[in-house]
C-alpha cells in the first residue's frame, strides 16, 4: 500500500460520521448501520493491506507528510502520519475490534432512540482514534487524543436525558482535562528543548545525546505520564472510568476497555525513548501501575453492577500494562494491551448480551442461573473469564505472565521489581477471584430475577419489544413482557469471533521458556530495539528458563486459588462471605471505593465551588467587573451630560459642526502644506 493513501484510513470513518451526522436522521436504520459498517470495514481492509505490504517489503516504517500545519520561526509542525510495527498492532486492534463492535452495536442498539447519532459518534471516535495512532508528531497525536475524549464524552452522555449519564460525561471530560494539562505542558517542554514536535526529530535528538539522563527528560516523562494516567484511568485520575459505564455497553467495550483507554499505554510506549532515559519516571510508572492494579482489583471484588466490575477490572488491567511499561517491558505491555482488547471487549459485549437478555438489568444480585437460558453468551463469556484470569492456554495468561516475569526480573531496581511482582501476583489472584465471582453470580446458582417484571424498571433503556424469533425465554408475562432471551446472531457473531481471539490470541507470544518463540516481541523489536536488546534481552538469557517456568506456575496457581475461593463462596456456600465480612470496616471501605470520590469532592470540588462563590462571584464578578461597569457608566454619563448639549436634534446644527470640523482639517492641512514650502 502506497503511504500516500494512509490518510484514507482515518478519513473514511470521518466521512461516515459526516454522512450519518447530517443525513442520518432521515435515513432508515439499516442504511445508517450499513454506512457506519462500510466506513469502518474499509479501513480494516486497508490496514490488512498495509500490514501485508509492510511484511512483504520488509519495510520497518512508512510515513507520509501532507502539508505544513504550523510554521513559525524556529518551530514547524506538519500534518504527518507514520506507521511502524507498534502502529500496525494498534491499527489492527482499533479497526478489527472496532469493526466487530460496530456489528454488535447494530443489533444491540436496534431499538434505541438516536440510532444515527450513536453510529455517527462511533465513527467519529474511530476517526480520532486512528489519527491518534497514525500521528507522526505530538501535536497531531494530541488532536486525536482530544478527539477521542470528545467522542467519549458524547457517547458516555448518549442517554443525555438521564442525569447520571450527563454527569458521568462531564466527569470524564473534566478529569481528562487534568491529564491533558500535563500532556500540554510536556509538549511545551518538548518544544522548548527540541524545537520540534515530530517523533522522529525528538527521538533522534535524544538518541544522539547519550549524556542526557533524567533532568528535563524526567520532567517531560512525568508530565506525559500525567496525561497518560488521565486517559488510561490510572491512580489518581481513574475515577471517571467506572462512571463512564453510563454509556451504552458497546461504547464501554470499544472506548472504555479496548481502545481509547489504552491510548495512555500507547503513548508511553511511543515515547519510550524519553522514559528509558529517566529511571525515576519509569519507577513512577511502574509503581502507579501496580498500585492501580491492586487498588482497582480490590474495589472490583465487591461491586454488584456487572459493568462496574468490568470497569474496575479494566482499570486494574491497565495498571498491569503500566507496570509493564514501568519495567521497560514495552512489548509485553503492548502484548497485554492487545490480548486485553480481545478479552475485555468480549467480556463487555457478553455482559451487554446478558443485560440485553434481562432487558436492561445490570445488578448481579438479580441475575443467576442464566447458563441454560443464554448458552452462547455463557460459553463466550467463559472464554473471556478464563482468559482474563490468566489460566493457560488462553490469551491473558501469556501476556500477564510476560509482564510479571519481566517485573520480577527488573534489573534496574531489583528490590522494587520483586515488590511490584508480589503486588502483581496478588492482583492476579484477586482478578481471578472477582471474575469468577461475576461468572458464578451471573450464570450459576438459582435464578434471582423476576421474569414477569423484567424490563419495567429499565423501561427507559430497553423498552422496546424484541423480535419474536430471538425470544428463547418462555413468555410467562400476561401483559406482553418478554422474558430472558438469547441475543440475535448479529450480536453473537462478534462474541464468537472475540472468544476465539481470546483463546488463541496469546499464542503468538508464547515465551521461549514454554517452547514458543515469542513472535510478538520480535515483531516489535524494531520499535523497542534500543530497550529490549540493550537491557532485557541480555537479562532474558541470564535469568534461566527454569525460573520463568517456576514463576509461570506460581501465577497459574494463584489464579486457580482465586477461582476456587470464588467457587466456594459463590457456588457452594453463597452468602457466607457477605455474612462474615458484610459489616466489617474493611468491607465498607472497599465497597465505598475507598471513599475516593468523596475525598475528591471534599478536597478539590467543594473548595473550588466555595472559592468560586466567594472570590470569583463575590469579589471579581460583583466588585471588579460590575464595579468597573458602574464606574465607567458614571463617567460616561458625566461627560454625556456636557456633550449632549451639542446634540440639539436639529439637522442643521449637525451640518454646521460637520462644516466646522472639515474647515479645521482644511486649515490644518493648508498650514502644514505651506509650512513644508
Amino acid at each position, binding site marked *: 500500500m502506497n503511504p500516500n493513501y494512509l490518510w484514507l484510513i482515518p478519513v473514511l470513518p470521518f466521512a461516515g460520521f459526516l454522512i450519518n451526522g447530517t443525513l442520518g436522521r432521515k435515513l432508515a436504520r439499516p442504511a445508517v448501520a450499513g454506512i457506519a459498517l462500510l466506513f469502518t470495514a474499509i479501513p480494516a481492509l486497508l490496514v490488512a493491506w498495509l500490514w501485508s505490504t509492510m511484511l512483504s517489503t520488509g519495510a520497518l516504517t512508512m510515513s507520509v507528510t501532507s502539508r505544513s500545519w504550523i510554521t513559525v520561526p524556529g518551530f514547524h509542525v506538519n500534518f504527518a502520519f507514520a506507521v511502524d510495527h507498534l502502529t500496525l498492532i494498534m491499527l489492527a486492534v482499533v479497526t478489527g475490534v472496532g469493526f466487530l463492535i460496530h456489528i454488535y452495536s447494530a443489533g444491540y442498539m436496534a431499538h434505541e432512540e438516536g440510532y444515527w447519532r450513536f453510529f455517527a459518534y462511533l465513527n467519529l471516535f474511530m476517526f480520532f482514534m486512528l489519527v491518534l495512532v497514525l500521528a507522526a508528531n505530538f501535536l497531531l497525536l494530541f488532536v486525536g487524543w482530544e478527539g477521542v475524549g470528545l467522542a467519549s464524552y458524547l457517547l458516555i452522555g448518549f442517554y443525555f436525558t438521564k442525569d447520571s449519564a450527563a454527569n458521568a460525561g462531564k466527569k470524564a471530560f473534566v478529569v481528562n482535562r487534568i491529564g491533558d494539562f500535563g500532556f500540554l505542558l510536556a509538549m511545551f517542554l518538548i518544544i522548548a528543548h527540541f524545537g520540534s514536535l515530530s517523533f522522529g526529530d525528538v527521538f533522534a535528538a535524544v538518541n544522539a545525546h547519550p549524556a542526557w539522563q533524567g533532568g528535563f527528560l524526567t520532567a517531560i516523562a512525568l508530565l506525559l505520564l500525567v496525561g497518560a494516567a488521565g486517559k488510561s484511568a490510572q491512580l489518581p485520575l481513574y475515577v471517571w472510568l467506572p462512571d463512564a459505564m453510563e454509556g451504552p455497553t458497546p461504547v464501554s467495550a470499544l472506548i472504555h476497555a479496548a481502545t481509547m483507554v489504552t491510548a495512555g499505554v500507547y503513548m508511553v510506549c511511543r515515547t519510550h525513548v524519553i522514559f528509558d532515559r529517566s529511571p525515576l519516571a519509569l519507577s513512577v510508572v511502574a509503581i502507579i501501575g501496580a498500585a492501580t492494579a491492586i487498588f482497582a482489583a480490590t474495589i472490583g471484588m465487591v461491586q454488584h453492577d456487572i459493568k462496574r466490575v468490568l470497569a474496575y477490572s479494566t482499570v486494574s488491567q491497565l495498571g498491569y500494562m503500566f507496570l509493564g511499561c514501568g519495567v521497560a517491558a514495552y512489548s509485553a505491555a503492548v502484548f497485554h494491551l492487545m490480548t486485553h482488547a480481545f478479552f475485555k471487549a468480549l467480556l463487555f459485549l457478553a455482559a451487554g448480551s446478558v443485560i440485553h437478555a434481562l432487558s436492561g438489568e445490570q445488578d448481579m444480585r438479580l441475575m443467576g442461573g442464566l447458563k441454560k437460558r443464554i448458552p452462547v453468551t455463557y460459553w463466550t463469556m467463559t472464554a473471556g473469564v478464563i482468559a482474563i484470569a490468566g489460566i493457560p492456554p488462553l490469551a491473558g495468561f501469556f501476556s500477564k505472565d510476560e509482564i510479571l516475569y519481566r517485573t520480577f526480573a527488573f534489573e534496574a531496581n531489583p528490590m522494587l521489581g520483586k515488590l511490584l511482582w508480589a503486588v502483581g501476583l496478588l492482583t492476579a489472584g484477586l482478578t481471578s477471584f472477582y471474575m469468577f465471582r461475576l461468572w458464578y453470580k451471573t450464570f450459576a446458582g438459582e435464578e434471582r430475577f423476576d421474569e414477569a417484571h423484567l424490563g419495567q424498571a429499565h423501561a427507559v433503556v430497553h423498552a422496546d419489544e424484541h423480535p419474536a424469533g430471538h425470544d428463547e425465554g418462555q413468555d410467562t408475562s400476561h401483559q406482553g413482557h418478554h422474558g430472558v432471551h438469547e441475543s440475535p446472531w448479529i450480536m453473537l457473531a462478534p462474541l464468537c469471533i472475540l472468544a476465539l481471539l481470546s483463546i488463541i490470541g496469546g499464542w503468538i507470544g508464547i515465551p521461549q521458556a514454554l517452547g514458543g518463540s515469542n513472535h510478538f516481541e520480535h515483531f516489535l523489536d524494531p520499535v523497542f530495539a534500543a530497550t529490549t536488546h540493550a537491557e532485557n534481552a541480555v537479562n532474558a538469557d541470564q535469568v534461566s528458563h527454569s525460573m520463568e517456568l517456576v514463576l509461570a506456575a506460581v501465577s497459574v496457581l494463584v489464579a486457580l486459588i482465586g477461582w476456587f475461593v470464588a467457587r466456594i463462596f459463590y457456588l457452594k456456600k453463597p452468602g457466607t462471605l457477605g455474612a462474615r465480612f458484610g459489616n466489617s470496616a474493611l468491607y465498607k471501605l472497599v465497597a465505598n471505593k475507598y471513599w475516593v470520590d468523596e475525598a475528591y469532592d471534599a478536597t478539590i470540588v467543594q473548595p473550588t465551588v466555595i472559592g468560586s462563590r466567594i472570590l470569583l462571584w463575590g469579589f471579581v464578578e460583583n466588585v471588579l467587573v460590575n464595579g468597573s461597569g458602574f464606574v465607567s457608566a458614571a463617567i460616561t454619563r458625566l461627560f454625556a451630560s456636557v456633550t449632549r448639549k451639542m*446634540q*440639539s*436634534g*436639529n*439637522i*442643521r446644527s449637525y*451640518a*454646521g459642526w460637520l*462644516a466646522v470640523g472639515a474647515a479645521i482639517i482644511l486649515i490644518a492641512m493648508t498650514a502644514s502644506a505651506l509650512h513644508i514650502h
Partner: protein
Amino acid sequence: MVPIAYYLILAAVLFSIGIGSFLIKRNIITIFMSIELMLNAVNLTFVAFAHQWKLIHGQIFVFFVMVVAAAEAAVGLAIIIAIFRTRQTLNVDNINLMKN
C-alpha cells in the same frame, strides 16, 4: 489655455455655496439639492485633476459618483416623501424628533 487652478477655484466656490445653502436653507429638499451641488463641485475637481494628470481614472470616479448620487437621490427623496407624509412639513427646523 486656462490654468487648472481656475477650475479648482470654481469648484471651491461652488462647494462653499453648497455648504452655505446647506446651512442656511430650511426646506429639506433644497438642502438635499445643496448636497448635489457639493457633489458636482467635487466632480469638477476630479475632472480637472484627471485632465492635469492625463489619467482616465478621475473621470471614472466621477462616473461612480454620479451613479451613487442617483441612488442617493432615489432613496433620499423617498425618505423625504415618507417624512412629509408623517410630519406634514418640509422644514427641517420642525423635523426635530431627535431632540431630547
